[in-house]
């Protein structure tokens, strides 16, 4: 693996340009990645911490969501504890078939995320199902639809899940 700066060719097709953020936006993004307090007026509580008015905080938050700087704001649910199934799976897709396999895999509503990655295993997707049992069924259906073996990599232990990107 050679060390090289990211260039345009490495960016996903859906990446937008880096957003223009002012100091208050940055404080807001950093603070709200940590979680909203579960108090009666939570936005007012966070606004007070950041020395903003509640109205300004709500306006900025709405603008950051509309601009796609934030992809979501709300409760982050733990799929397994909601009773569902969740796994990470990978395929080694021949280059000539790649686009057809993208279509076949993405057609499954259980595929929540799908990324192309630079490896012989070049397609990595997350399956989220209504029940844990459904995971194996969907894997079998994907194998049938693509003719490729699915590498199933369910988590065996979770050490950390906390995306925090300081800005």
């Amino acid at each position: 693996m050679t060390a090289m700066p990211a260039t345009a060719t490495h960016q996903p097709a859906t990446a937008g340009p880096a957003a223009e953020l002012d100091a208050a936006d940055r404080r807001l993004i950093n603070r709200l990645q940590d979680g909203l307090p579960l108090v009666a007026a939570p936005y007012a509580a966070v606004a007070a911490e950041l020395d903003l008015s509640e109205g300004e905080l709500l306006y900025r938050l709405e603008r950051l969501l509309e601009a796609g700087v934030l992809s979501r704001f709300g409760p982050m649910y733990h799929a397994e504890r909601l009773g569902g199934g969740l796994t990470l799976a990978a395929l080694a897709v021949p280059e000539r078939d790649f686009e057809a396999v993208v279509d076949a895999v993405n057609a499954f509503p259980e595929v929540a995320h799908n990324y192309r990655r630079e490896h012989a295993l070049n397609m990595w997707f997350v399956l989220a199902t209504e029940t844990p049992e459904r995971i194996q069924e969907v894997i079998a259906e994907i194998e049938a639809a693509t003719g490729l073996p699915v590498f199933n990599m369910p988590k065996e232990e979770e050490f950390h899940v906390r995306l925090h990107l300081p800005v």
Partner: protein
Amino acid sequence: MSVSTCPSESPSLLDATDRAIVLATQAGLPLVPDPWGAVGRPLGLGAEEVRARLARMQEVGIVRRIAAVPNHYRLGYVANGMTVWDVDDARIVRLGREVATLPGVSHCYRRPRHLPDWPYNLFAMLHGHTREEVERQAEALRALLGEACRDHRILYSSRILKKTGLRLAGRPGAGRKPEPRR
């Protein structure tokens, strides 16, 4: 597993009212001064009940937290590497917990190997402004793992093929009917 950082998982932690709150907030929390009241109104619930139920769900880990999810790329984090490590099984639990505390690591899991094709059992997602930054983070991880690690790779994402996020279907306890496929 007694050493797990994950408490035992029970799917029966949700009653029908909790489930209605989950469904009502999957797309996001309303951006109004009283978000709990706004969630509760169509469900016939008061603000305090919604707040207390979400607090309980957060307490037991059904809700990780109520937070902003940033778009990595729009924040300038254009280098996103899934690092995978072949770590001694006897030491992976202790080391995995240490890896999880390193800067740049967002998600860190133990996953099964698929020998001989896939010898890696520890996954850590790294995020940086450049690949050089991700590779410095990976070096720190490599140093921490030391001789317990036999091999590793960094798999950069080169394209987002789908990103819809997790969705819970509407009916409690019911398997979802397959949606029509092309």
